[in-house]
């Protein structure tokens, strides 16, 4: 750091607001798409894994592998498969991959936590096993699913920045730009906005949870692996 330059320059934020806000919007779009697809895939997969022992191991195995492979490596591995490394499909498949283990794990944990009495009552009322799973067990597992959603969303928001290395990145573009020209301010902008975005999304999910699952006020902590 040269002595003449301050650590953070506010002028950058005001003069580059157009670029920052468009990066922020791309960040939000990449995040929402990944979490939405991840949720749509995870809940049925979790129900299958919970219901049928035979598919449990392959489902958790594949989800764990996608989770463990570092994001940058996953982009490079997916590139030749999707055709282009620097593309939305590459980024989205990888981002969705990271949500699967978190969401499936939490959904299964939620189904496991359903009280036996509730399940027995459903049977007594004439629900078949599958109907009960959909209309009794799944709603009762919602607090766990929401907990998973919070973790998955925060994780994706952090990971989207890495997609800057394959030419996307949302706020990650601020980070790589700052690094390339050796300028602190864009990096700090990327960092602070990512953290703030994660906090806002977390509050939104908690808000939706209170509306959707009014019988639980306290949010349960997510557990993964």
């Amino acid at each position, binding site marked *: *750091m040269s002595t003449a330059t301050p650590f953070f320059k506010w002028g950058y934020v005001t003069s580059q607001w157009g670029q920052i806000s468009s990066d922020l919007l791309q960040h939000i779009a990449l995040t929402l798409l990944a979490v939405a697809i991840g949720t749509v895939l995870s809940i049925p997969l979790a129900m299958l894994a919970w219901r049928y022992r035979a598919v449990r191991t392959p489902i958790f195995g594949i989800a*764990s*592998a996608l*989770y*463990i*492979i*570092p*994001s*940058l*490596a*996953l*982009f*490079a*591995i997916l*590139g*030749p498969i999707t055709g282009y*490394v620097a593309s939305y499909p590459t980024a989205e498949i990888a981002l969705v991959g*990271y949500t699967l283990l*978190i969401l499936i794990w939490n959904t299964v944990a939620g189904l496991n936590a359903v009280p036996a009495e509730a399940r027995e009552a459903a049977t007594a009322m004439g629900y078949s096993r599958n109907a009960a799973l959909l209309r009794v067990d799944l709603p009762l597992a919602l607090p766990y699913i929401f907990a998973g959603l919070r*973790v998955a969303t*925060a*994780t994706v*928001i*952090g*990971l989207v*920045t*890495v997609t*800057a*290395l*394959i030419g996307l990145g949302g*706020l*990650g573009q601020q*980070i*790589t730009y*700052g*690094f390339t020209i*050796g*300028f*602190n301010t864009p*990096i*700090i902008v*990327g*960092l602070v906005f*990512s*953290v703030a*975005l*994660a*906090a806002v999304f977390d509050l939104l999910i908690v808000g939706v949870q209170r509306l959707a699952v009014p019988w639980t006020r306290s949010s349960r*902590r*997510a*557990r*993964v*692996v």
Partner: protein
Amino acid sequence: MSDWDHFRHFMASVVGWFTTSANWTGSSGIPYLFLRQAELSLAVVLGALVVGGGIGLVLGHTGRGGLVAVNAANAARAVPTLALLTLFAIQPSISLKWGGFLAAFLALLILAIPPILTNTYVGMREVDADVRDAAKAMGLTGGQVLRRVELPLATPFLMAGIRTSSIEVVATSTLAAYVSYTDLGTPVISGLSTENTVEAFSGAILVAVLAGAVALGLGVLGRAITPLPIRHTRSGTALTTA
């Protein structure tokens, strides 16, 4: 050429990359890159164990600062790794130290501490209060309770924290190649920037295998050093990735 021919050609090139002797020797060879990544990751995890484990043990033993300890891991999840790496890497006082090692070490350390701290704290608090009271009633001092009762019982949680941290650190040390540290991330980064998909893909396979080996190895180790009577205990808070 059909897609299948493309794929076969590509995989043959990948096999070619792995069997090129130049990729196995010298300062850009796989063994050297692996050692650099292992060296960085090990230093970071040990550092995080001292700092995070130490704070977790003290807070857990005294029962103070619980809110901070429990939320540390979740708060850290949202911090973009790339931002910390690049920020440290462009501070001249840091970036010039030890070939980029210090910048990568500091960025990774910040990420590695929270999971260990949170898990250690939670593990200490999960120790049954009756067990703790019984130990005190038998005349054990505070330090003895910590070493001989709380710590062994908290082992599954502590190991889960170390495992989470290690997976995250190994993954993130790949990104350190972007800020000019040299390790297995280097072929991935250089392959991506020069559109050499074979090099990027091959490097990525090595990184993926390393991350998988660390995850599996630490899982086995965690079970092995957990005291027998509590091996069934499932533990650990959520993971993070880079």
